[in-house]
């Protein structure tokens, strides 16, 4: 069963691959995954950790909408998408998408679509803590500018 969710615990990569493979991993042949991890720098500034927060109900709904769109692109795919929230350390996995399909092109397309759309649309925010003691909302620089009308 395809599913999308916010999670607060660490993301178990093997478990998610096994989940999309199905009980015996025998139906699909091709699994594409994307794993996002917390980087140790943002531009020139050293990052020590960050906190992801979300508008939970809407984020879950958007992620599920995205999943359904991906399943329309790659009919018959099995897709799992999870995004972690809360405090994360450098190196932690923050997001993982796994898409299984009979054909590898469809597995890649579905996986790629889901991560691109998550980045565009899902109401999740990232607050980075820097080694220099500072902290900042990522993208907060656009706060003082006109926000483009996404609607």
């Amino acid at each position, binding site marked *: 069963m395809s599913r999308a969710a916010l999670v607060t615990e660490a993301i178990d990569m093997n478990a998610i691959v096994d989940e999309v493979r199905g009980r015996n991993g025998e139906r699909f042949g091709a699994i594409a995954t994307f794993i*996002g991890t917390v980087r140790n720098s943002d531009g020139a500034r050293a990052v020590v950790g960050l906190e*992801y*927060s*979300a*508008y939970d*109900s*809407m*984020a879950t*709904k*958007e992620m599920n909408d995205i999943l359904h769109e991906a399943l329309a692109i790659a009919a018959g795919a099995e897709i799992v998408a999870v*995004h972690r929230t809360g405090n994360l350390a450098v190196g932690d996995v*923050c*997001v993982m998408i796994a898409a299984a399909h009979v054909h590898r092109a469809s597995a890649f397309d579905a996986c790629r679509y889901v*991560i691109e759309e*998550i*980045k*565009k*649309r*899902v*109401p*999740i*925010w*990232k*607050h980075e803590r820097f080694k220099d003691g500072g902290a900042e*909302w*990522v*993208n*907060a620089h*656009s*706060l*003082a*500018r*006109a*926000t483009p*009308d*996404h*609607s």
Partner: protein
Amino acid sequence: MDITVHVFASYADAIGSDRATVSVPDGATVGDLRTAIAALSKSLPPRPLIAVNDKYATDDVPVGPKDEVALIPPVAGG
């Protein structure tokens, strides 16, 4: 009517709260709400993004006191 708005992330920092109440005329739309919300703080953009009932909403969408309204800063998931 009074509309309670959920406020997140950098926008919550800007207004100093994760919730705000704005007054708009009965029959108001998201467009009216955006103008009223932008007036809450100079740090907010002139046309902040609004979600109504977990969905991004365009200016023509009507809002009422029973709707869940949220102010959505630029997203940064993934």
